[in-house]
């Protein structure tokens, strides 16, 4: 269950950088109201994901062995292991996302520093603002740094889940060994990530009265991205079944049959309903405009994406090449407590974030206001 939760959290962590970096480079103005929040969500989700491989080692206190550090024994990590690739992919993604998030916050920290009434908050926000004065030189350097970080983060959106998909694709287990996995996983990650952004944005928008900042345009756009990526994911499911049949490989064919008719068939059909059938309602404008229905669809998609990872991991492993190793998997109580615990940790960080940091970028919001338009 560790590996599927790891993939689920990493997937959720994708939307933030996509919204921040890729939509910035594409000059999409609508990203501005949600980018800060989505970036924070990315960081917190990646933090949860990063815990799983470490706990999964069984000896978490030796996790530093995964890094290629100089040591007297001359021991080097196994670079052919996908676990190693994950270490580099996830740590790079987390580092760049954190830098991008922090750099984006600097002008807003300065605003908070200038507006805070109590001395401790002035000092704290002042330290975080790193001496920002808003001079032309500051803005010039800032814009350059932000754009460069966006350029750096953009390929990472694609690379991280590609590497995560390699965890499976380099294995010979039926159902895993497929060249389609990288794009299929990246689309699934964006799909799950946007579902989570909407899941959190809809109630927060209402509770804080941010309807003027996060408008229905955002809701429609995010729903459309979900619909598009959901269709790619659906194509992936169809292709998985097709490859199983077309390969002529009896193990691959059995894997597909086992998914659809085996002991875990209920999970498979539930994920089809959650991930393929339910999002089709997003074609309808009335559904996209009804925030309660949209929110419920996002919950269904989030559950569906968890089920997808469960099906990929468990149905392939529980009946592999050797019948003597066949069996049934039931997560233990401690698997569930760990999963629920990471959800708790994620929301704890998120609640602290919305209380103590500006969840919408103040200075970027100003740039898209009608007031900011310059007549030429």
């Amino acid at each position, binding site marked *: *269950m*560790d590996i599927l939760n790891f993939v689920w959290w990493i997937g959720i962590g994708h939307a933030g950088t996509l919204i921040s970096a890729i939509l910035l480079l594409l000059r999409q*103005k*609508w990203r*501005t*109201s949600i980018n800060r929040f989505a970036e924070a969500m990315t960081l917190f989700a990646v933090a949860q994901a990063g815990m799983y491989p470490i706990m*999964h080692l*069984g000896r*978490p*206190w030796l996790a530093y062995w995964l890094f290629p550090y100089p040591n007297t024994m001359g021991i080097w990590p196994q670079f052919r292991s996908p676990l190693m690739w994950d270490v580099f992919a996830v740590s790079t993604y987390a580092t760049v996302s954190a830098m991008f998030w922090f750099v984006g916050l600097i002008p*807003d920290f300065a*605003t*908070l520093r200038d*507006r*805070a*009434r109590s001395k401790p*908050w002035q000092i704290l926000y002042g330290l975080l603002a790193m001496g920002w004065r808003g001079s032309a030189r500051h803005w010039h350097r800032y814009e350059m740094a932000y754009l460069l970080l966006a350029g750096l983060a953009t390929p990472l959106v694609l690379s991280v889940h590609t590497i995560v998909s390699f965890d499976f694709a380099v294995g010979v287990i039926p159902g895993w060994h497929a060249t389609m996995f990288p794009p299929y996983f990246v689309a699934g990650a964006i799909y799950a990530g946007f579902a989570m952004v909407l899941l959190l944005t809809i109630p927060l928008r209402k*509770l*804080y009265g941010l*309807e*003027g*900042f996060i*408008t229905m*345009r955002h809701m429609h756009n995010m729903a459309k991205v979900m619909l598009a990526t959901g269709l790619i994911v659906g194509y992936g499911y169809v292709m998985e079944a097709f490859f199983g049949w077309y390969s002529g490989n009896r193990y691959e064919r059995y894997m597909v049959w086992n998914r659809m008719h085996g002991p875990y068939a209920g999970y498979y059909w539930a994920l089809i309903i959650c991930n393929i059938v339910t999002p089709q309602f997003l074609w309808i404008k009335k559904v996209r405009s009804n925030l309660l229905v949209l929110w419920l669809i996002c919950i269904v998609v989030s559950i569906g994406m968890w089920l997808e990872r469960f099906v990929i991991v468990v149905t392939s*492993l529980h009946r592999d090449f050797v019948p003597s190793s066949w*069996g*049934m*998997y039931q997560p*233990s109580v*401690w*698997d569930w*407590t*760990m999963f*629920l*615990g*990471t*959800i*708790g*940790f*994620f*929301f*704890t960080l*998120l*609640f*602290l974030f*919305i*209380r*103590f*940091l*500006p*969840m*919408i970028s*103040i200075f970027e*919001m*100003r740039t*898209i*206001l*009608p*007031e*900011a338009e310059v007549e030429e």
Partner: protein
Amino acid sequence: MADEPHNLDPAHHTTHPVVAPELTFASVTDKISSIVLKRKTPLWWFLGFGISFILFQLLLLTITNLLFVGIGLWGVTFPWPGGWTF
């Protein structure tokens, strides 16, 4: 049909605005910074944070237990990847 003229009515093509038109520089700064700087924290925040924090303690409990018991906690009784419980 190809011969039919396109609907040139601007209202036909209107989409939702990116932000509410009444927002100004000052109102944006006031609204967002007030969420962070105002003293009174809403009750729902405490409720949400409290539930999340309790769940978070479950994670700490699990990790502590894992450190004491080892991977047998997941039902692993032999050194085979995946942590299967047969």
